[in-house]
């Protein structure tokens, strides 16, 4: 049996046996990334809707900057948050460096541009189709933009899934601000990096499989919900 097949076999066994280390690591990963995405969703969707409809000097520059931040390297975010939260930094008094809270902040900053930029584009495109109708019905611009987020909620769900995927799969930021402390800040990606460097491939592979399964399951749920919404009307002419 090849090394890969052997590692894969052991990884599957770890998943099936619900290995405690694996479960703890997965739980922390999900908690950190889901919290970061929830915070980014709140701010990012509102900011995206606002940017889609409100005119002000410098709006185009801000949109260009936001789009540029889509490719923001996670290590840069980690570095910036590290500098802010370190003892000598402006937020050092919070004392949260190397805690899950610091990881949430870093991942929120990482995915905020994703949610903001993609939702802005989504709202702008939707308003081209139905914006006049909503204005005609009395909707103010920001209200119309928020209604478009409701209208395109499955696309919004896809954006949030994309953001979650980016958060849960990044390693640079959480490694820097979390410190990869066993049982405290060790998440899926930092564990994979560490275990691979130690040569313990089965645990790394098992975590990789779990990561894929989580994202696949969420994607599947969104697909099912979308199909349920789009069922043709029985009896429609």
């Amino acid at each position, binding site marked *: 049996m090849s090394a890969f097949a052997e590692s894969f076999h052991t990884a599957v066994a770890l998943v099936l046996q619900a290995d405690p280390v694996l479960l703890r690591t997965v739980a922390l990963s999900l908690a950190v990334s889901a919290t970061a995405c929830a915070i980014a969703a709140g701010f990012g969707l509102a900011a995206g809707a606002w940017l889609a409809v409100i005119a002000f000097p410098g709006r185009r520059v801000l949109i260009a900057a936001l789009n540029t931040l889509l490719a923001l390297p996670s290590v840069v975010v980690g570095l910036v948050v590290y500098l802010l939260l370190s003892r000598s930094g402006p937020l050092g008094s919070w004392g949260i460096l190397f805690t899950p809270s610091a990881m949430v902040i870093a991942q929120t900053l990482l995915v905020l541009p994703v949610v903001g930029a993609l939702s802005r584009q989504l709202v702008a495109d939707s308003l081209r*189709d*139905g914006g*006049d*109708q*909503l*204005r*005609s*019905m*009395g*909707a103010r611009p920001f*209200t119309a933009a928020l*209604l478009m987020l*409701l*209208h*395109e*909620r499955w696309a919004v769900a896809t954006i949030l899934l994309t953001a979650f995927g980016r958060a849960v799969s990044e390693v640079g930021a959480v490694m820097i601000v979390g410190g990869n402390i066993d049982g405290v800040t060790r998440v899926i990606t930092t564990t994979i990096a560490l275990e691979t460097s130690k040569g313990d491939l089965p645990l790394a592979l098992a975590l990789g499989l779990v990561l894929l399964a989580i994202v696949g399951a969420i994607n599947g749920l969104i697909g099912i919900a979308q199909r349920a*919404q*789009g*069922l*043709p*009307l029985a009896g*429609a*002419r």
Partner: protein
Amino acid sequence: MTPILSLDRAGVRFGAVTALRDVALQVHRGDFIALIGANGSGKTTLLQALHGLVPHTGTRVVDRRGAAQVMVFQRPFVLRLSVWNNLRLALWLAGVPAAERVTRATQALQHAGLSALRDRPARALSGGQQQRLALARAWAVRPDVLFLDEPTANLDPSAKKEIEAMLAAFAAEGMTLVMSTHNLGQAKRLATRVVYLDHGTIRADLPTARFFHEHLDARAELFLKGDLKWDV
């Protein structure tokens, strides 16, 4: 009689294209105006200018009696919500008190013959049903003026008949309607006034009976005969 809505010397440009040029139009309470003209003559732009949806030069005066306005578009836009929630949302946007919304939405569904489809996703309705929903949504808010942009375009004869019946009922209730249409028969059947547009300019504005029986200018005559060429 004081108009409830008027445009004076209105002009609209989209880049290098002049969509409306020096247009003056007065809408009186109870009017059912049909805007007719060739494709690109400015009918939709005139509706949007009257409704205040496009920036324009000139003046637009809205009387207090004509302040509540709604437009039904050629391709109705309905939100990905149920038929019922689309109606309730329209009432909320129009500022209708919460206590009245259920009653009004129920009445609107009955008016449009959509009661059985109340919980269906609005986007799953047929084209004719979506247009009826758009009209029900507009009727529910009791607008002073209802603008309609080719409301029966792309519908089959049966759906067209249903929509026309709804519009006739709205007019009978005293609602003021301004509708663009390519259907001259529809204009004859429904409208009290016909406004003919050509290249963004109003060429005729007459009561319906006179419009179809009097001698009009040469281009309007060509349009009515179906002989107006696209490139002239």
